[in-house]
């Protein structure tokens, strides 16, 4: 879709300033792009490449390495339904089929109202609460098909204020004032840290310090 807007470009520069090398800021910047558009657009990657001074191919390489960066538009809510062992034993597959049927979409598709995308995912580390689902990476535990329907209708009715739209990392963004940034000198330029300099030298082979 688009490059970063002016507000986000300012934010991007603030993020870049937190790192010794601009390139290190790529992952947070990709999140920023995804927050803006709901997915990481090609134009946004070109913009990021300019901002951190790398080739667009390098941004693409970083972006595509991570499953959670979406390169195509997705629904406002991504439903990650687990079908790994614990969930499967407790009805994960059935839950996925139910979700496909009620929303009328296959995993990876966007529902007609643009609200939902289903994903069939591997273990999401909540086996004790199986079967489970994530809605924009927030958990719903021990989900029956009725519970699923309830989640969907709540979202449609706008009752789930706790769920941010896809791409949003948190409801509150952290801002670090420039004077409180730590460790932003590049490793080549940084001197020996105090805690390291004060260490006793390792004994040599003869056992002497």
């Amino acid at each position, binding site marked *: 879709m688009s490059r970063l807007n002016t507000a986000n470009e300012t934010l991007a520069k603030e993020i870049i300033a937190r790192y010794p090398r601009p390139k290190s800021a790529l992952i947070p910047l990709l999140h920023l792009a995804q927050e803006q558009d709901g997915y990481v657009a090609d134009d946004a990657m070109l913009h990021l490449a300019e901002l951190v001074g790398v080739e667009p191919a*390098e941004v*693409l390489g970083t972006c595509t390495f991570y499953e959670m960066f979406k390169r195509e538009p997705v629904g406002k809510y991504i439903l990650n339904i687990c079908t790994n062992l614990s969930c499967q034993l407790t009805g994960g597959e059935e839950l996925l089929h139910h979700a496909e049927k009620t929303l009328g979409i296959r995993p990876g598709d966007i529902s007609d109202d643009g609200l939902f995308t289903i994903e069939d995912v591997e273990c999401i580390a909540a086996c004790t609460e199986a079967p489970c689902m994530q809605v924009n990476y927030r958990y719903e535990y021990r989900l029956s098909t009725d519970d699923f329907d309830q989640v969907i209708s709540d979202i449609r009715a706008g009752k789930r204020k706790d769920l941010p739209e896809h791409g949003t990392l948190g409801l509150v963004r952290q801002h670090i004032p420039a004077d409180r940034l730590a460790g932003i000198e590049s490793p080549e330029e940084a001197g020996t840290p105090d805690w390291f300099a004060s260490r006793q030298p390792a004994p040599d082979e003869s056992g002497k310090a």
Partner: protein
Amino acid sequence: MSTTESTEAVTGVPFFLNGQALSANDGELLIDACERNGVHIPRFCYHERLTPVGMCRMCLVEVDTGRGAALQPSCMLPVTPEMKVNTETEATKRAQSGILELFLINHPLDCPVCDKGGECPLQDNAYAFGPGETRFVEEKRHYEKPIPISDLVNLDRERCILCDRCTRFSKEVAGDPLIHFIDRGNETQVNTFPDHPFSSYFSGNTVQICPVGALTATPYRFKARPWDLTATESTATVDSTGARIALQSSRDEMVRVLGVDSEAVNWGWLSDKERFSYEAANSDARLTEPLAKAGSSFDSIRWNNAIGQTAKALSIGSDRVGVLGGARLSVEAQYVWSKLLQGSGISNVDANIGDGIAADLVLGLPKTTIAEAVAPGSIIVLMAPDPKEELPTLFLRLRHAAVESGVTIVEITPTATSLTTHASLSIHPAPGSLGAVTEAMANQLFGTSVGGVDGSDLEAVAATIAKGSTDGSNVTVIVGRSNLAESADFVSDAVQSLLRLAPEAKFLPALRRGNLMGALEMGLTPEFGPGGNPSDEPGLDTEAILRAAVNGKIDTLLLLGADPIADFPDRNLVTSAFNEVNTVVAVDTFLTDSSARADLVLPAAGFGEVDGSFLNLEGRLSPLQAKVTAKGQARDDWMIAAEIAESLGMDLGFTTLDEVRSDLSASIPSFGAVDWDALGRSDDGPLLDQGRTWSVDFGSRTEVPAVDGYGLALAVDRKLWDQGTMIHNSATLAELPEQAQLSVSAIDFEKLGVRDGEVVTIESGSIRADVGVVADTGLPRGTARIHFRLPGLDIGELIDCEQSVTTIRVAR
């Protein structure tokens, strides 16, 4: 076993390879140490010129460092004392076989239709180390069959084994990371960003180092099978770096050029111009028979008539003949031509056709080698055109020096170059002030600003150069003509000042044209005879020849592979000269802008068709070897000269190349010790010691021109992809040159008040031209840059070489 005994027995790092006590160099990787001792360990990702990454695991061997034998990747393991290595154990063999079976799971096995088949490391290793059968019965991974990732390179992702060689090369060596691993796990692939092609000047190297058929080059695709190829070693002649190459042909047609790893010169790398411009040799536009002008077209004539008519045109009176060019020729041909011209008393000879630096700078300054210039701790002063555009393989060495060896690069160029990001200091003197800027440094008079350069920057540059000279580190000045719209005299002035600042400095001349060093050394220059001996009666240089022609003082213009109409900076001067002379004779491989206007055209055998030798910018002699027969009736340049001499009643005594060579060795001392027969076999080629110690006569300083406050001073330089003859006639390269553009600094751009790319009118004197304008952060305020010889604008029309600087006015 006693450690003391074994370390005494051998030097270096003692280790055991398959039970044999051997020694490795300090820090040497196990894979290299084994190779050096005759044990080849199979590998895909490891390449001697790239950082080891241990991606492919093919080089696993059993290593015991005292904690029991374990499989370790030998490309990631420096040899440590008493390391016990076994490359023959059952475990090693099972590992290697297993790795190959895994590689072949998704590899398509379309070897019968794959260009790599027959010379494929994957194929070879599968035969030598593989299991022979696969247990994989499922569907292989499928991708769209080759996708073009640039105009020159195609990528077949099914064949790729993800060894990281191409991506490492483009990031580490070329500095153009335009290809990258995309996606993850089973879906990992190499690719570009959508619609951002892999348009690196060095993209062909990735094809050469690809261990499978994943990357193929468009010019070679489906042209031949490896077992049909025959090869010979030669030298790339497209620029003066003299990169070593292997020239391969099939059915008497050149089909491929590969880089040869020469430690001294190109480290195995080539630019795409060196690699692919052989295509021009096979072009239908090649000259195949002697031609004589008949009205507005040419008639083909017989060779003996052509020779006779040329001899007649040359015997018109020695001071009424001008000879331009000679850099395309081999050293031997240059020598024979030089003898012929000397014998005829013709001294108006210039191989440097007005777009280079003075011949005495090239011949007379103390020279160094590329290896010495880039030695760790050295200082390199770049006072030359952007090496990436003009001497790309040298650029790779310089970039490596700056990035990996901590070499300090100081730039004194009219605009930013491809090395600017790696340079510790960059100053961009305004056109016309190069001499003044360097003089200020030599005099330590910095002031607030000289020639648009801030006094403090100037002081820093001067201190760096002078410090290198006092603390004993190498200072190498790469000297060349970085602005064609500016007099070359400024370069001589600047060299003079730099020598005062750093008397120990050595030089590397950044010569663009292939064998220009050979041409100057062989005496195809007005002021020097063969071997760099100053002439008693110097002739005219190119500009003077052209002016004499305009004034009716030259009757015959002989072009030795030169295209002055396209290459001489001042277009009006050169075209008026062509209009005035009676006879133009061209010895060439193509009808160029200039040879198309000749009265007589003699077809010469070109690159890959002649035996001979090449002198690179260091003064290193390397072989040129014929691989295919010359097109049509085209003949070796030296034979043409010998025949003309005979027709003139002169007997040069040359009937074979060996006779030329022995005469050359006998008459030029620096060639005395050359073992001509070993030339094709020795690794790097001998470095000829010119043994000259004369000091360059710099003459008086060039007047610094007054600056026109309303205009922009013009900087004209070249791009790698321009409309040069070889590129223009290579099918795949011809489309690569970009449209000409006017680049100005952001401040000047804002003043113009135009849109990006908007067409403006530029004006110099009474000449006007239209061109699109863009802002470029690499330009200093007040300077405008236009690349020479690009489509869309002939900037030569705006250059007047009587003016030491060209100033243009820009209007909407």
